[in-house]
């Protein structure tokens, strides 16, 4: 790892990381401040939810809205969060390797004693730092606004909310793993972006279809997203350890392969 490169890379990607981080934090803050209103009318909302088609409820990850964690899991982590973080992870992964190779600036980075492996490790560190910053901002925002607006003892469960964020972070740690791997494979930024985006979107689609069409529920096993069910984490029904270990493994394999492949391949710089 090269500290000089890390510092400048964080600087170069600062806007990207912070715009996604702040966007995510604001959304969570907004939704959190709306919760007391929902809570006051909980009975009516629960009655209304009964008439929703079950498939739709499953697709949106609605378990129940009785606690803050369940509410925020359904309103944010089950849908928008996945989109926002998905886009961020893919964009930054492609920017960190494929774009530099495509534009030729990698030639400068590789003109010094810093080895290819060190450069890849540095870029991985930037990616993980970016994910961490976004999750810290999001978590802090949810926590602070919950403290301010919610009758804390009643509904805000710190641990549930923390777990939703932590497992979410690990999900994107894994997605970052294969996206960065794809990033090291291509000379053309656009091709890398299409493949990483395509795979992620396919995972999401498979998960969605499996949730809506109960008969083919099994196809969800082929999607990473089936291992992240914020609604179930909130209600305590999720297998956190299994999900976390699989995400960590996929991520680590992706990052190790990235280092290995980038070390071995011909670069047209």
């Amino acid at each position, binding site marked *: 790892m*090269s*500290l*000089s*490169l890390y*510092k*400048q890379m964080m*600087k*170069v990607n600062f*806007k990207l990381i912070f715009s996604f981080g702040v966007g995510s934090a604001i959304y969570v803050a907004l939704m959190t401040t709306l919760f007391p209103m929902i809570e006051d009318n909980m009975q009516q909302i629960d009655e209304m939810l009964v008439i929703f088609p079950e498939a739709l409820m499953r697709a949106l990850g609605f378990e129940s809205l009785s606690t803050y964690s369940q509410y925020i899991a359904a309103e944010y982590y089950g849908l928008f969060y996945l989109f926002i973080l998905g886009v961020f992870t893919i964009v930054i992964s492609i920017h960190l390797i494929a774009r*530099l190779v495509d*534009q*030729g*600036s990698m*030639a*400068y*980075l*590789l*003109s*010094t*004693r*810093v*080895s*290819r492996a*060190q450069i890849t490790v540095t870029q991985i560190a930037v990616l993980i730092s970016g994910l961490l910053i976004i999750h810290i901002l999001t978590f802090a925002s949810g926590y602070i606004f919950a403290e301010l607006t919610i009758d804390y003892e009643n509904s805000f469960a710190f641990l549930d909310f923390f777990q939703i964020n932590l497992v979410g972070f690990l999900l994107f740690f894994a997605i970052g793993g294969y996206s960065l791997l794809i990033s090291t494979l291509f000379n053309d930024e656009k091709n890398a972006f299409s493949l990483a985006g395509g795979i992620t979107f396919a995972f999401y689609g498979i998960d969605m279809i499996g949730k809506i069409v109960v008969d083919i529920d099994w196809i969800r096993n082929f999607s990473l997203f089936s291992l992240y069910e914020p609604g179930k984490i909130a209600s305590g029904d999720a297998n956190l350890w299994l999900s976390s270990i699989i995400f960590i493994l996929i991520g680590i394999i992706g990052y190790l392969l990235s280092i290995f492949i980038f070390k071995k391949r*011909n*670069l*047209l*710089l």
Partner: protein
Amino acid sequence: MIIIKNLTHVFSTGKGIFDVSFKVEKGEVFGFLGPNGSGKTTTLRHLMGYMKPQSGQTLINNLDVWENQSKVRHNIGYLPGEISFLDGLTGESFLNMMAGMQGASSKARREELIELFQLDIKTPIRKMSKGTKQKVGIITTFMHDPDIYLLDEPTSGLDPLMQKVFIDLVLEEKARGKTFLISSHSLPEIERTCDRIAIIKEGKIVTIKDIHELHSLQRKTFNVTFAKKEDVNALLESELSVWKIDDFIIQIDIQGNYDKFLTILSKYHIKNISMDDMSLEHTFMDYYKREEVSP
């Protein structure tokens, strides 16, 4: 110091480099000349360890470049042919990053070079002109005081004044015993600095020549204006290769035989001499033809 042995790398398009071999000695400035797309950059990419040879080998300081990439690069100043820095950095932050990655401890050399090239380091890189970006590249390449320089089209985008500054810098470093490999598509650009020159065409080395030898092989065309018509006719009879342009002007092709040219011309009253600028392509074509004919 730099050894390239039978280096071959063929791309799927059929282009590439074929059986390229040459050596650059310590303290030598070696020119690598060829038209665009002839394989200069591909050869340099192998010397930097960006590409693995399909066959053959590249050695720098007796180390295989592909196997010892970062160790070899330690001592190299490389100026890529394509100017592309990171988006969103100023000249200064880019230089800081590169200095950090190079492990350079002293800022003195960098300051000297910034002064020399009159670079405004506070400007964001994306707002810089091509020539200014090239200056950033050159400073990056020279600031860590390496022993070997690999420069890909170093003067592209520089104005004539800065080209001179650059040439003086190369000569200064050469005097300090540094080794250079400079690629270019233009002979005048590098002839002042180079000791030897390799000419590459379509991925193959056509010739490697001492610069003086190359000069003597280079054909030059002079346009000479005479005061009298008779003199023109007299010269047409001489042993120089001469064409008549009009009643007073003739064109003379010279290739190394400058003495004879001057001896003959000194007998006449001459009103003007001008030299045609011959493009490199022209010089090349001429040179290639001769190579093919000679046994």
